């Protein structure tokens, strides 16, 4: 009897937690007041940091801001933007375009910007893009680069039995093996799928020599920490992924645009590397603190 009551209490408690968790869901249909901007972010630290930067920059200029960070994937937050549950979110140009238009072929930053304007729904717009990019990048060790005289992806063509490690989708996606074959003429690649998005396992495989080339997101601190050489991509095989504010048209007042454009003008890939490094490094700095520090350094608040 006692056990039953305990189990009932535990069930009730977990149900409560579940309901509480649901309370934070952006799909609860609540829209923000017309003078308030609700800022969302995707569910990974870098995006959260940029969202914090937007939020604090706007607040400093007297704009009312509400935050609904950590909203999972595009399938969730793009509809939330369209319905007005959130108004602003940091996006990446290439991925946003391919989400909106599955057949998009643009890869250079300019082509993507132009295509985005057409692909976006009427109610949404993107503002000025930042120089900062977080995209797939092919990396080799310093030693491998020197030994084989490799600087760009094109230089990989002469290496026999090239071993490449990346997320599983790299094998079939246009920017992956098919693109390396078609655009750079690199054939006979031995591919190893490592499902950690260029994380520690991919890094270890590269450092151990199990693979020669690793696909690691360009703002991952491990690239700098291990002196990896990121190969240049002269043919724009990998689509540009510049950071850009995606905003509901009706909330994009001149004032808001000016603030966000000023942020984008300053934000570089190196900044993202530093911010991610501090966030993931030993001190595990919080996104809000990192955002404040960055804005202060750049003289934006």
């Amino acid at each position, binding site marked *: 009897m006692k056990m039953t009551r305990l189990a009932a209490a535990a069930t009730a408690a977990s149900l409560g937690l579940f309901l509480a968790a649901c309370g934070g869901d952006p799909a609860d249909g609540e829209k923000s007041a017309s003078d308030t901007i609700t800022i969302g972010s995707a569910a990974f630290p870098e995006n959260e940091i940029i969202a914090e930067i937007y939020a604090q920059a706007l607040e400093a200029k007297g704009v009312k801001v509400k935050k609904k960070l950590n909203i999972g994937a595009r399938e969730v937050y793009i509809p939330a933007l369209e319905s007005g549950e959130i108004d602003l979110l940091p996006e990446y140009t290439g991925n946003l375009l391919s989400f909106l238009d599955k057949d998009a072929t643009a890869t250079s930053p300019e082509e993507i910007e132009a295509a985005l304007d057409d692909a976006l729904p009427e109610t949404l717009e993107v503002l000025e893009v930042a120089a900062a990019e977080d995209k797939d990048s092919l990396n080799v060790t310093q030693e491998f680069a020197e030994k084989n005289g490799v600087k760009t992806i094109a230089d990989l063509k002469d290496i026999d039995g090239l071993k490449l490690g990346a997320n*599983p989708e790299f094998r*079939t996606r246009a920017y992956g093996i098919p693109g390396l074959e078609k655009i750079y003429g690199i054939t006979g690649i031995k591919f*190893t*799928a490592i*499902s950690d998005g260029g994380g520690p*396992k991919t890094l*270890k*495989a590269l450092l151990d020599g199990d693979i020669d080339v690793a696909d690691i997101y360009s703002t991952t601190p491990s690239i700098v920490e291990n002196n990896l050489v990121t190969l240049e991509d002269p043919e724009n095989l990998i689509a540009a992924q510049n950071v850009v504010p995606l905003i509901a048209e009706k909330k994009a007042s001149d004032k808001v645009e000016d603030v966000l454009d000023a942020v984008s003008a300053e934000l570089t890939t190196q900044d993202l590397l530093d911010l991610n490094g501090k966030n993931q490094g030993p001190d595990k700095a919080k996104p809000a603190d990192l955002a404040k520090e960055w804005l202060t350094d750049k003289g934006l608040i």
Partner: protein
Amino acid sequence: MSVASETIDWFTDPANWSGDYGVPNRIVQHLGYTAVTVAIAAALAIPIGLWIGHTGRLRGLAVVFSGALRALPTLGVVTYLGLFTGVNLTATVVALVVLAVPPLLAGAYSGLESVERQTIDAARAMGMTEWQILTKVEVPLALPIIVGGLRSATLQVVATATVAAYVGPGGLGRFLIDGLAVRDTPQVIAGSLLVIALALLLDALFVAVQRVAIHGHPAVQPSRS
């Protein structure tokens, strides 16, 4: 087009049946991982289980130990070990051995425990050595339960060997992980069906083996006391 018909298309596409990424190669890899794992686990667990069952020593420890092993989530073990072993089979095999040891161990010691005390006493009274008692009396009588442990271990391993794909190597898990990565649902379903079919097939095989283990010794079936 429905997912069901797309899955059928996947199975009928010849491209999915040849080369390194084809079904036959994936099945061979998958069975290979399973065989290696179960062999290592059996080599470790069965001798220990027989010793525990024969001597009656350390049984409590074995129960606690295998209970603790059972509680380890295989995917967690693979992911964690993968950080140290790199993109090869080591992490997968270790994690799957951890999964296979408890049923093998339990099969071995509980098999011996099921042998009637009087039978063993009779064997001892006839002047058999301890080794003879183990190999000529206890193991033959316990064989159906030992094979049962092997069956349970093999099934768990063949169903779980899909995690190998998570840290690099192949096997049928590739269809699941690669399919999920590009939201290719038919490929994921096809991979799952292949794993299920393989598991059922192996299980049927073990049913036959267990039957032989019982009927091979009609006079010495384990008592039901």
